[in-house]
């Protein structure tokens, strides 16, 4: 095999003098994160890749050869990126010359995933191949001769079952004593080789990726690589561009497909006698259970059960009920708040400043109590449940079941994730809209979450509020659902851009690993608190300030200007203003008004509808600004406000006319 690759014999290794960086790359669902956790322990930092909303996770590992920085890159299928996440993964490869690249693949799909390994090797990177999930492959009757694979690829190959840390020692050893063949690349057909040669010979600059890989990417008309080469080659780029254009024209329409087929052929040569199947796929118990979860009829009761037990019982009753009572009611109201109040009274001589810490909107009594006493228990239970579902591989199944329904409102099945999360927390849901493919989908989802998906906190109070009034709950639910559908239909038609396309890999169902779930939940909570806590503190200060200079008075007057059209009393304006700062507080405000007998059933229903549709809380708006940009977020804000009050006024008239409530 090595002879026919026609390369220069010899070995090469990365420069050990540099701070060692190790990049984990590979398809989604191959166990990269598990490997990452195994290499680093739980100490990781999640950060946004500059200029994007893609998360990159980094951590430190102690190796025999010294410390190393480990980067877990987003899932990538080939060196030629399609989605924003893949682009980030490749940029990380480009920006770290000399880094070790660990390509993690799923042993069960060795054949398909080796195409990427070939690309990494031909790009001249220092690659280690980790063939993970060997245990399940074995169970499926797949035999892999790893030593032979190593010889044919010319790079270290490590077999692993990372969830049990099998292969971790060998991997560490391979990292410490890294060496790869300097041998040349895998040969394509003479035509493709000819094309590569014609482009390659024109390069003058120096690059992280090999010239061969760059030539191939240019021939596939990769814009980002074209920019990179333009910057590096300066005037010389014109010549390269002309030649690439000519060749691309000659091979028009078929180059990418030809290349993929060539790689497929290369892989089948490499795995000849290395990979042996002894069984046919898809007949075991796991496969049969998997079929059940995506069954168009049986899948739905299963979904209902998951939502009932997971969201309602675990997050709603246990998290938002039992835990909140315990922490907020017991710990904060009973112990922390009184202690701080006492201390503040002793230490702070100015009542105004004392109020900042322990007053109605105090940093401790409001912000911290709210963040840790109410949000934290809900978020912890939600993320636990969420991580279990995520690790079991259920979400892609849910997405494929709901794709058809979502297409109606301009979204694809992928949107099921943010929308479901929206019933937990709209802020978190807005962050998760990142996983949607096009900006159009992200905007539609952000809008619908802001408008018509009530978060768990709001949902709880509204249900309690309306439950005692006959029919009000039905009017409320029907109106909100109708608005959701109509606005979805409308935006799907009005917003420019293409219809979403749905395609998704369905990973096998897996039994979630407790340690992995805990680590994931922990890092999510950490992130969540870092993101949310500053906003709460800020809001607390603003509220304190607002109360001090009585700005609420004016805001309330302003809100009443609109509320008059809904036949709502002036007192209800306070609920709307507060509702923006604390979503459930608004609903709770209505609750007070109802107890005082100020609102009749019709007004109650109208107020609940308007409040649900009205812009979420300030935290969600902040995240909308951050994720969608000032323009889009402001437009959504304005639109949502108009719809909320417009629908409120309409509902009011309709109820008067029909006399239902």
């Amino acid at each position: 095999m090595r002879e026919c690759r026609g390369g220069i014999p010899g070995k090469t290794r990365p420069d050990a003098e540099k701070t060692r960086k190790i990049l984990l790359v590979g398809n989604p669902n191959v166990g990269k994160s598990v490997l990452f956790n195994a290499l680093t322990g739980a100490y990781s930092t999640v950060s946004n890749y500059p200029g994007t909303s893609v998360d990159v996770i980094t951590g430190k590992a102690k190796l025999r050869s010294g410390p190393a920085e480990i980067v877990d890159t987003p899932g990538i299928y080939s060196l030629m990126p399609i989605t924003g996440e893949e682009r980030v993964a490749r940029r990380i490869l480009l920006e770290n010359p000399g880094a070790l690249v660990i390509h993690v693949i799923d042993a069960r799909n060795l054949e398909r995933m080796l195409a990427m390994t070939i690309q990494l090797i031909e790009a001249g990177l220092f690659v280690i191949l980790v063939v993970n999930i060997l245990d399940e492959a074995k169970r499926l009757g797949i035999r892999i001769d790893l030593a032979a694979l190593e010889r044919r690829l010319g790079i270290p190959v490590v077999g692993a079952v990372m969830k049990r840390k099998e292969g971790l020692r060998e991997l560490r050893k391979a990292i410490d004593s890294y060496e790869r063949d300097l041998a040349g690349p895998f040969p394509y057909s003479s035509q493709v080789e000819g094309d590569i040669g014609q482009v390659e010979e024109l390069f003058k600059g120096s690059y992280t990726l090999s010239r061969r890989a760059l030539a191939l990417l240019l021939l596939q008309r990769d814009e980002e690589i074209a920019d990179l080469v333009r910057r590096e080659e300066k005037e010389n780029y014109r010549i390269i561009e002309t030649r690439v254009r000519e060749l691309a024209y000659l091979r028009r329409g078929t180059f990418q497909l030809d290349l993929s087929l060539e790689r497929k052929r290369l892989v089948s040569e490499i795995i000849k006698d290395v990979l042996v199947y002894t069984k046919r796929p898809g007949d075991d118990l796991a496969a049969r259970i998997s079929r059940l979860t995506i069954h168009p009829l049986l899948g739905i009761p299963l979904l209902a059960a998951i939502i009932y037990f997971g969201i309602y019982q675990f997050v709603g009753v246990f998290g938002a009920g039992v835990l909140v009572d315990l922490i907020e009611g017991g710990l904060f109201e009973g112990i922390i708040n009184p202690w701080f109040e006492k201390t503040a009274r002793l230490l702070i001589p100015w009542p105004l400043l004392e109020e900042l810490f322990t007053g109605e909107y105090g940093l401790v009594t409001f912000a911290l109590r709210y963040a840790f006493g109410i949000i934290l228990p809900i978020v912890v239970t939600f993320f636990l449940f969420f991580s279990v579902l995520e690790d079991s591989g259920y979400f892609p199944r849910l997405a494929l079941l709901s794709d058809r329904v979502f297409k109606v409102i301009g979204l694809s099945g992928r949107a099921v994730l943010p929308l479901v999360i929206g019933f937990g927390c709209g802020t978190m849901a807005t962050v998760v809209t990142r996983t949607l493919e096009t900006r159009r989908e992200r905007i539609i989802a952000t809008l619908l979450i802001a408008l018509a998906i009530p978060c768990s906190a709001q949902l709880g109070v509204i249900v309690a509020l309306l439950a005692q009034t006959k029919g009000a709950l039905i009017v409320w639910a029907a109106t909100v659902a109708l608005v959701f559908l109509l606005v979805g239909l409308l935006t799907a038609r009005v917003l420019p851009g293409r219809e979403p396309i749905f395609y998704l890999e369905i990973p096998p169902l897996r039994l979630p690993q407790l340690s992995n779930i805990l680590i994931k939940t922990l890092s999510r909570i950490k992130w969540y608190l870092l993101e949310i806590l500053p906003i709460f503190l800020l809001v607390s200060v603003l509220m304190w300030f607002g109360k001090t200079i009585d700005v609420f008075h004016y805001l309330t007057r302003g809100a009443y200007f609109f509320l008059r059209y809904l036949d709502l009393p002036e007192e209800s304006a306070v609920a709307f203003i507060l509702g923006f700062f604390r979503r459930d507080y608004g609903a709770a405000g209505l609750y007070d008004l109802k107890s005082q007998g100020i609102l009749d059933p019709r007004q109650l229903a109208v107020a609940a509808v308007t409040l649900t549709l009205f812009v979420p809380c300030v935290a969600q708006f902040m995240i909308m600004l951050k994720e969608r940009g000032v323009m889009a977020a402001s437009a959504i804000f304005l639109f949502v406000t108009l719809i909320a009050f417009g629908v409120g006024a309409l509902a009011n008239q309709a109820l008067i006319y029909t006399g239902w409530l």
Partner: protein
Amino acid sequence: MKLSDRAEEILEALWLASEAGLNYLEMDEGEAFPPDLAYEELQRLALIEIRERRVYFRPEGREEGKRTIRRHRLAERLLMDILNIRGTRGDEKACQFEHLLREGVDSKICTILNHPATCPHGKEIPPGDCCLEARTKGDLGVVPLTELQAEEQGEIAYIQTEDNQKLRKLMAMGVLPGTEIKMIQNFPTYVFQLGFSEFAVDSQMAREIFVRKG
């Protein structure tokens, strides 16, 4: 047998009349002067006979008419399905195109189109030899992925998409010509298996993957 274009059109018209339940065609009055050579041509070849200004098929003529209408409807399919020319323009072009499909070109086109049974207007395309042969051999031909039932398998024949982005997505998933594919479920989305991986795609994408059943 090489007929003039006009003669072929007469055979077609006669075939259409017989589909409508008539066994003859009224000769156009206007065609009588100057005499339409195409009628003579057909009579000379013993394909039709004319009695009292009505045109009737002779048995050989019926066969020839069948082949002619087949070429016309295949041309319509080709223009619409492959070349994406529709509407009146498509009909016009099909009328010109059909005359090129003689001498075995029709069976090649028919095979590419996977032996279609009806024309775009829903009329029957009379089966040719190639269709009968394919049927006896049990060759199921190349169909879009949407036509595969659950548990059916095949080999990916080609991907037909005008969207480069989509092509790349499919290739990244491993959807490449020559790969074995097995349908798992076709509602609410298309779920298929490639090797040991499963994928879900919507009908937009499934329509562009063509599979040789078997």
